[in-house]
């Protein structure tokens, strides 16, 4: 037993001595220096790998795309298409707030599929550039749109879905909004809501079910509160769960994006510039500035276009005619078939 202890002490002696001799601060500093040099080495390695991967940079308007020489023509065509679309959407001063970050596309080994369309890449480039523009110049509006950048034009059928959402969600302002009350629409869209968002949006008797819809991570206390809200109807527990970030909005992201789309359509080429010009004013003022009309007019247009979409499964005449025409044609083909001839 005594021999074993002696052997262990002899083994630890060199380390023990050196560690004791060093100050903890000096050890930490040396370790930090070593870590820094390792990180530098990694950055250099990544940079070299990136240079090996992307040998060319395409510049299309304000867009810069790091790519390979082989992919250059394809990336250039897509970049130019994306840039034109961005200028049309955000106005000519789209790069006023600095250069776009470099986008990467493919590598030296990549090839363009024979039937690949530059338009697909253009849409991807446009989407990432649009996200950058919104996050740098219209962050508050982007947050209001749930962090989702509007892509493309919202279709007729999507507008119909917004109308359905407006009548489906049991929020206080929704039905009044659908009936044409502008201020109700402002509340439903989260533009003009009082300090108590939950109470402005929903009647207390809907809160327990709304709490059941809350998704995402809840801690232990919040889970208990949700149970109390749903099972016992404890309104204070409901309030603690149904924060503005968690509660179901009366109108979702697409409805809000549609309002921005209408503002841009109304405002013309410089609509985004006006939206981004003054970040100190409220959301409704920024939207009104973008649209070039008072917010009431913009909200009226939004509500009117929702009411104008025909709903229900009633077949429109062209659908009826199309169905009958196809049936007639196919029947004629079937009658002229080769059987029994």
């Amino acid at each position, binding site marked *: 037993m005594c021999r074993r202890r002696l052997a262990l002490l002899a083994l630890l002696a060199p380390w023990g001595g050196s560690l004791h001799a060093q100050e903890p601060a000096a050890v930490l500093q040396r370790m930090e220096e070593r870590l820094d040099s390792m990180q530098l080495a990694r950055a250099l390695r990544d940079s070299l790998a990136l240079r090996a991967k992307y040998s060319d940079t395409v510049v299309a308007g304000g867009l810069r795309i790091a790519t390979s020489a082989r992919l250059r023509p394809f990336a250039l065509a897509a970049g130019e298409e994306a840039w034109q679309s961005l200028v049309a959407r955000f106005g000519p001063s789209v790069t006023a707030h600095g250069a776009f970050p470099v986008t990467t596309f493919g590598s030296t080994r990549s090839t363009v599929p024979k039937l690949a369309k530059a338009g697909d890449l253009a849409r991807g480039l446009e989407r990432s550039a649009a996200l950058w523009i919104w996050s740098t110049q219209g962050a508050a509006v982007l947050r209001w749109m749930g962090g989702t950048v509007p892509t493309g034009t919202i279709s007729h059928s999507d507008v119909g879905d917004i109308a359905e959402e407006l009548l489906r969600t049991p929020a206080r302002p929704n039905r009044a909004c659908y009936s044409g009350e502008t201020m109700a629409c402002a509340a439903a869209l989260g533009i003009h809501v009082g300090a108590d968002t939950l109470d402005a949006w929903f009647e207390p008797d809907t809160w327990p079910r709304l709490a059941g819809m809350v998704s995402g991570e809840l801690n232990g206390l919040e889970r208990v509160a949700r149970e109390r809200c749903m099972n016992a109807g404890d309104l204070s527990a409901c309030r603690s769960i149904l924060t503005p970030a968690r509660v179901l909005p009366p109108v979702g992201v697409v409805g809000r994006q549609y309002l921005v789309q209408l503002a841009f359509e109304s405002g013309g080429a410089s609509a985004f510039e006006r939206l981004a010009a003054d970040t100190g004013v409220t959301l409704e003022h920024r939207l009104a500035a973008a649209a070039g009309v008072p917010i009431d007019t913009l909200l009226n247009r939004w509500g009117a276009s929702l009411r104008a979409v025909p709903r229900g499964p009633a077949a429109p005449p062209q659908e009826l005619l199309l169905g009958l025409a196809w049936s007639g044609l196919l029947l004629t083909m*079937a009658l002229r078939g080769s059987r029994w001839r």
Partner: protein
Amino acid sequence: MFRAILWSQWRESRLAMVVLAGMAVAVPLLSLRGAGAVTDPWASWDLLRATARWGAAYPVLALAAALALAAGAWWPDHRTKHVYALTLPVSRVRYLLLRYGAGLTLLFVIAAVLAVSTVVATIRVPLPTLLHAYPGGITVRFLLAGLSAYTILFGLMGLTPRMARLVAAVFLLVVLAALVADLASLGWNPLGSVVDALLGPYSPLAIFRARWMLIDV
């Protein structure tokens, strides 16, 4: 003669007819089963969600009816190797029209059952303001979808064995081309293109992609 052919069609597809008519009764009634009182703030939510969930049942029903009736229209002739049809003193076109008309009549019967069922289902449910019931619209859409699918399937089932083999070969070729295109990373899917063409906005089956909402805004 039409009555005789209609009778033979009925005999061939009566089991399917009864099942489909039963489904035509059940689907609208079941879709609105859980509707609450109008005073319930969640009434619209529940109604529209249930209607959307059950909406897929209507085109499936139309397709099933078309398939059963098209098969029923040709099966007696296929079984007897077309001897009966060839012995009849009527032109081929007239005979086929009679067969087609018999199937179509039965499709109308299922649509009529659906119309009655949707009307009954929507009458029983108190609707929140600003929501509307569309029993007529959904029946017309069912009829159109059934008509398009029935006509296509009637034509396909009437093909000669040689033509049927040709159609099957073309289909296999498209599947093969899709596989090759995928392996070669061509970025093009012929099978997807065919499906898009069949379900595109101006195609005969476009109606299957429409909204099938018994209760809507």
